[in-house]
């Protein structure tokens, strides 16, 4: 899967989950950049990303992801749709 395509689809997910159409993510985006991205919303975000790309994050990945870039790398590697 290509990085640009992943970023585009991730953008839609972020906009839906945080209810904010002005969000644009890049590889450096972290939870500090998005106001509502707290631990509870993180769970929803992970769930939505898993559904969208047809993969399951490993437990270590869920708690260890530092920025959107790391998320994109995992999706590129293991995403199935």
């Amino acid at each position, binding site marked *: 899967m290509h990085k640009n395509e992943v970023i585009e689809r991730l953008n839609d*997910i972020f906009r*839906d*989950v*945080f*209810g904010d159409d002005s969000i644009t993510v890049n590889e450096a985006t972290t939870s500090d950049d998005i106001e509502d991205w707290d631990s*509870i919303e993180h*769970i*929803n975000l992970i*769930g*939505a990303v898993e*559904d969208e790309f047809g993969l*399951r994050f490993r*437990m270590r990945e*869920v*708690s260890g992801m530092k920025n959107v870039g790391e998320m994109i790398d995992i999706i590129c590697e293991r995403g199935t749709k």
Partner: protein
Amino acid sequence: MKELTFPFDGRQLMRRRRAIRNQLLSDGSTRIKKKIAVLAGSTADDVVKALELFLLDAGIEPEFRITEYNRFYESAVFGDPELEEFAPDIVYIHTTSRNLTLLPQSPAETQERTEELLKEQSEIFRQIWTGAAERFGCPVIQNNFELPLFRRTGNWDGWGAAGQSAFIQRMNVMVSDYARSHSSFYVNDISYLSAAVGLEKWHDPQVWYLYKYAMSLEVIPDLAYSIAGIIKSIYGRNKKVIALDLDNTLWGGVIGDDGQEGIDLGQETAAGQSFCELQSFLKGYKDMGVLLTVCSKNEQENALLGLEHPESILRPEDFAAVKANWEPKDRNLAATAEELGLLTGSFVFVDDNPAECAIVEAQLPDVTAVRAESVKDTMYTLSRGGWFEVTSLTEDDLRRSEQYAANAKRNAQQKQFADYGEYLRSLDMEAEIGEFLPVQLSRITQLTNKSNQFNVTTKRYTLQEMEAVSRDSSRIAICGRLRDRFGDNGIVSVVIGRCEGDTLHVELWLMSCRVLKRDMELAMLDELAGRCRNRGISRIVGYYYKTPKNAMVSELFGSFGFTRESLSENGDSVWSLSLAGYEEKNKVIRIKENSYA
């Protein structure tokens, strides 16, 4: 909203939650506000978020307070000042098999030890329920327990002395026993729900380890929908009618083309058997007080021919109304609603034809359309839809169909009388009006929470609140039951007023639309006035709070001879009546004396 009606796409719902929430909150509808305390045995944030959507869609605006994770026992048993101050209207105990701390841990556990564990585990939950009832005095919703996905001992786990599945099933029997013997306690059946969606899908140990969610994120909307069904029912938001198409919905084939002997119905064919099973399923709804009606594009005589099929389980007399003609179905539904004195919002419409479902949904958005693609679809959608949750089943429910049938007879009679008064007198009506009896509280609460049209304040009460009202010496609270020559209508009217000095403030005045235009409201007023005089009250103040549904009583107090004191911009009004020289107004209903002595 169709997105929030079963079958829904739970994943999309959670992803688009904020947008859907905003849409609901800005749709301009008025909602009742309810406070819900969640005693959480595992993380409940998403449960609450999904529940909020379903409740908003049902006209209930919830405010939530969630206890800290895994403090459900302490909060209920030892108290939680914050929660008590919150004063919830509903307590939801969000526990699962993850909270069964005494599950036998080893298959080698003895029978005696398992019995002890079971006793102790049951006791823990009973303490929670007793504590919650005492501290909060409001309805309690309790999940029962889901079966585990993992079975160390295989089948033995389900029946052996120390089997965990066996233990869980015995806990569930305990929960149901408790529910049957305690009012205002409702079981959210996650044992069924987890089985229906599949244990493999229900369980997701990873989200437990990561976030302490006791079930997969995917099924959380299903869980929330099920809870919403119970809450909606408690507050009288159940549907009341199932309107059924005939051809390829209640039987296979087209009666007009295939004839009575040509349709699939009966034990001879596989398809015939399936429709028999469906009909018998539907007949059960009738027995619990849901009205069945026919809405079919057919000639009337053909429709009846089908229902008179020798193998047909549903007979013409099982239907409160039969509309078989070639008019658009939305118009027929609206006409049926009017005849039965109900709102179209209380209808579930079942049709195999997606085009008919679509037109009904478009023209009457408050009707829930169920696509009957197969017998299984119809039965499963009705099973999971949550439109007919039973939170109380009164004797009136069991008789409702008869009452509506009697109404139809009355309407037929009405035509022979030139003078309406003559007709009313011919009905030979007799009313019993008095204070609330304990056995009537359940029916009074139910009637109060579902009456929308003839209801001046649309104030809702839980069973406990109604009980408190009935004991409150500063209130006058009366209910009325009406019989006539065609049958017993049961309790049809409730009036509650608060005394303040020489004035009575009317807090609730409602009547079932089944007995509209029968002068029952005048009989209630006479009784109220009499009771006021006995207590030295000389003035009654009435309040009309306008809702989208109660226009029919906007002039009720005026029609009684009250004077309007004020009229607000929003349509609300205040009325008053001096009781000096009050003359009895009811002339057609006989009042049964000393009926409650």
